[in-house]
């Protein structure tokens, strides 16, 4: 019978809410915002991905159309890696606007990933971006607090609370009923977002609509439903323990400010403050120094490469590199590329580790801030988080390395060791080889990797659910009617 009582209370709460004009105003504004966010998300996703795919293809055609030439020229001709957006980035922009989108891949050099949306943006970017996820993370809590701050306190102020309790309604039913009432009102906002997101996902082309993206979508839906539930419980709890509706409102607004504006910004700033990362010049200099320590492949007297030559000559039992069965300079470049790529990789890993430390303070706050938890989970599942970006960077570098090494190997195999005179035509190999190199195809992280990265955020969301339910139960035994 109890569930019916909670249900009645919930229904009554919604009915009352619909009697006020404010709710309609809020809903209309929210619908407009959701519509705008959905449109923006869809537009950005489709136009950006179309542009990137277009240029990936154009760059590929121009790669394949190269005539016969020396493979090392092709290694310098290089390729590009354009980052493709995950379809769910329509829902949550995450870090998308702040990460580079295109990188030029060539031999010997790891170029920076350029042309982030932020680099073309005005100072207005500081105010943030409107995505459907942002509306659910930032505006929804505020609306839930608005709707529910008086849920219990007003009944107490009116004296109706006493009446209900004396009529035999249990505290638990009242608290759960009110929470459910707020929750159902919140669903007027959450459900449209869920539906629109699914609709947009279905609109994308079939290749991007996979079980993986469906699972990610399901994960997002669950995360936001849980988040909303926690918010409703918190609202009812605070409304119950506050001495007046006004105080409840003040407390809830302070919670909102702290949770959504102050804490995330401050913790990220502190992370950056406590774990300073290397600047580009420091990073490049460190890599350059380490590479020079290993040896300079362009310097004929360099001890590392001299030793290498001597040992190669010994193994093949010849007196000069011209007699080797493969192109020696291709061999040296392969060695040089391997060394410099390894050194670069080592430094990059250190840098990424520093970034992760910078982000760690913010991540830990998920335990005291459900907003941080849902934000991290949402970004990870939408493929717009830090890890997704690092994965792209790694993928691009792997492709670059393989491209350079394949060209070095083609040179070893097909280019003669005889030195050419100043007026001779340069050695070339057939252009047929160019097509053999696969094009760059970025892959998104799989859902289990994405979730694995956010294990602590998920646990903290579970923790928040358990905590708020426990508090409701505890309060239902201790709460006062007056």
């Amino acid at each position, binding site marked *: 019978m109890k569930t019916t009582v909670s249900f009645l209370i919930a229904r009554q709460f919604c009915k009352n809410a619909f009697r006020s004009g404010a709710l309609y105003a809020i809903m209309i504004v929210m619908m407009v915002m959701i519509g*705008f*966010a959905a449109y*923006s998300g869809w*537009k*950005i996703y489709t*136009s950006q991905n179309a*542009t990137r795919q*277009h*240029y990936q293809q154009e760059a590929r055609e121009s790669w394949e159309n190269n005539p016969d*030439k020396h493979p090392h020229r092709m290694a*310098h*001709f290089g390729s*590009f890696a354009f980052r493709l957006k995950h379809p769910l980035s329509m829902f949550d922009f995450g*870090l998308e*606007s*702040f990460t580079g989108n*295109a990188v030029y891949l060539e031999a010997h050099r790891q170029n*920076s990933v*350029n*042309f982030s949306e932020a*680099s*073309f*943006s*005005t*100072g*207005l*970017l*500081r*105010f*943030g971006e*409107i995505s459907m996820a942002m509306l659910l993370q*930032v*505006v929804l809590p505020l609306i839930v607090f608005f709707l529910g701050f008086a849920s219990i306190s007003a009944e107490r102020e009116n004296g109706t609370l006493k009446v209900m309790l004396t009529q035999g309604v249990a505290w638990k039913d009242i608290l759960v009923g009110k929470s459910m009432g707020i929750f159902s009102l919140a669903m007027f906002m959450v459900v449209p977002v869920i539906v629109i997101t699914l609709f947009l996902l279905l609109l994308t082309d079939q290749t991007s609509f996979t079980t993986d993206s469906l699972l990610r979508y399901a994960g997002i839906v669950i995360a936001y439903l849980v988040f909303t539930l926690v918010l409703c419980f918190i609202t009812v709890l605070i409304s119950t323990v506050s001495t007046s509706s*006004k105080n409840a*409102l003040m407390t809830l607004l302070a919670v909102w*400010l702290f949770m959504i504006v*102050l804490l*995330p*910004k*401050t913790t*990220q*700033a502190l*992370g*950056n*403050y406590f774990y*300073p990362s290397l600047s*580009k*010049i420091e*990073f490049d*200099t460190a890599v350059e120094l380490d590479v020079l320590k290993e040896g300079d492949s362009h*310097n004929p007297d360099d001890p590392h490469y001299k030793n290498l030559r001597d040992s190669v000559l010994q193994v093949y039992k010849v007196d000069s590199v011209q007699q080797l069965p493969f192109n020696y300079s291709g061999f040296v470049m392969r060695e040089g590329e391997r060394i410099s790529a390894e050194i670069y990789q080592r430094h990059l890993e250190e840098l990424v580790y520093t*970034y992760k430390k910078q*982000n760690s303070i*913010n991540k830990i706050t998920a335990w005291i801030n459900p907003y941080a938890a849902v934000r991290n989970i949402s970004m990870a599942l939408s493929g717009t988080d*830090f890890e997704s*970006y690092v994965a792209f960077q790694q993928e691009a570098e792997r492709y670059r390395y393989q491209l350079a090494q394949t060209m070095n190997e083609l040179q070893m195999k097909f280019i003669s060791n005889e030195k050419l005179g*100043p*007026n001779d*035509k*340069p050695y070339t190999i057939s252009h047929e080889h160019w097509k053999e190199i696969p094009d760059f195809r970025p892959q998104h992280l799989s859902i289990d990797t994405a979730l694995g990265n956010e294990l602590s955020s998920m646990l903290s969301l579970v923790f928040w659910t358990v905590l708020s339910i426990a508090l409701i139960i505890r309060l239902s035994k201790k709460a006062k009617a007056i």
Partner: protein
Amino acid sequence: MYALFIKQFLRSKAVILSFILTLIMGIISILIGQQFLSRQENIIRQVTAHQREHIERNVAAHDEMGLLLYYLRFSLISQPDKIAALSIGQRDVNPSIQSVTIRTLEGQRYDTDLNNPSNLQSGNLDLGFVILYLFPLLIIAFTFNLLSEEQEAGTWRLIAVQAKSAQTYLLRKVSVRTIALYILLAVLFLIAILGLSLPVNEALLAFAIASVLYLAFWFAFCFWVITFKRSSSFNVLTLLSAWVVFTILLPAAVNNFVANLYPVPESLATMVEQRDGYHEKWDKDKGDTMEKFYAHYPQFKTYGVPEQTFSWLWYYAMQQMGDDESLQHSRAMRDKIMQREQVSRSIAMVMPTMHTQLLFNDVARTSLSDYVQLLDSTQTFHERMRLHFYPKIFDNAVVKDEDWKRFTPEYITERKSVNWLAMLLPLIITVAILCILSGSNMRRIKSV
């Protein structure tokens, strides 16, 4: 009377607490600004040292001008002013230093710094942020119940009857809070000036005046809302919603709108074209390339078409083609960026939050246009370097004859002056309108 107002205001623990909290956030923001400045200064020192060492090493290793200039990088620095610490703006996203070789520029000048995208997304907690976001919250907290609390406590009737003028009474109450917040603002500015050793100049003055006007906007807005004589709960809900709309939703919506209106696919076009423009020349007729090169630089025509398979003259002519053939898209990209800037500025005129943010960045030289200025200056700088070294490369001049010591990093010196009218007028007009609106509400206020 005033003493009582002040006493009443400061009696609340919440007021003191929020003051202290904002003061602490302000000091943190100044520390963050200081860290930004010292990091930038540090980088400039490193770049300067690195350039000297890099040139020395390469000059020692290469005796061929063409090959040497393949490696040499020259830096152009847009040093942030000290005031940039107060509003870091786009200086975190975009680099302040360009290090370029004289090869194809388009492949180099968009290179970014190494950044943690999470930090960029979170944005800098600088003093600009504290003023733009946190001060309005304080203003809301201090004013929302000025009138309603008296009404709710039943004291308003007494005041309306006893006070000479209820309007004056209300205005005095507001002025106590205004003065308190302006003192807090002044304290923060003082800490910033002393802590960052900010020069007291036109820029700082503009920054301060803009802050004062911006806070005046919020006071006027809050005052206008409370003169409708609604309940405390209604006021706080309205004001906080307005805060969310003004500082988050509207500006963010405008940002989305502008980004969608002006996408920049030209950036990727430029990137691909600069590669193809240069690299394809390896397989094309040498004479054609040289002809195009001489069309661009007729002064070098006498060097003719080299006969050898490889020559540096031909090499740099090919590199030049990377720039020449991507020129159109590169220009289109610049136009797009400037369009974004202009449209944002126009829309921002009517919304003090956006206008003040852009204004802070302008004054601190941390805006998008300052980055575009660096890009433009890099082009001029690069061209100057090219024209200096081209004849030396083509003549195969002796490396040792060049005075390499004089190639230290260069600085952008150009400064915009403050356009006071365009800066402050939108804020003044908004404040004036709100004052008039509140004034007309005030006239009706005495009747209970």
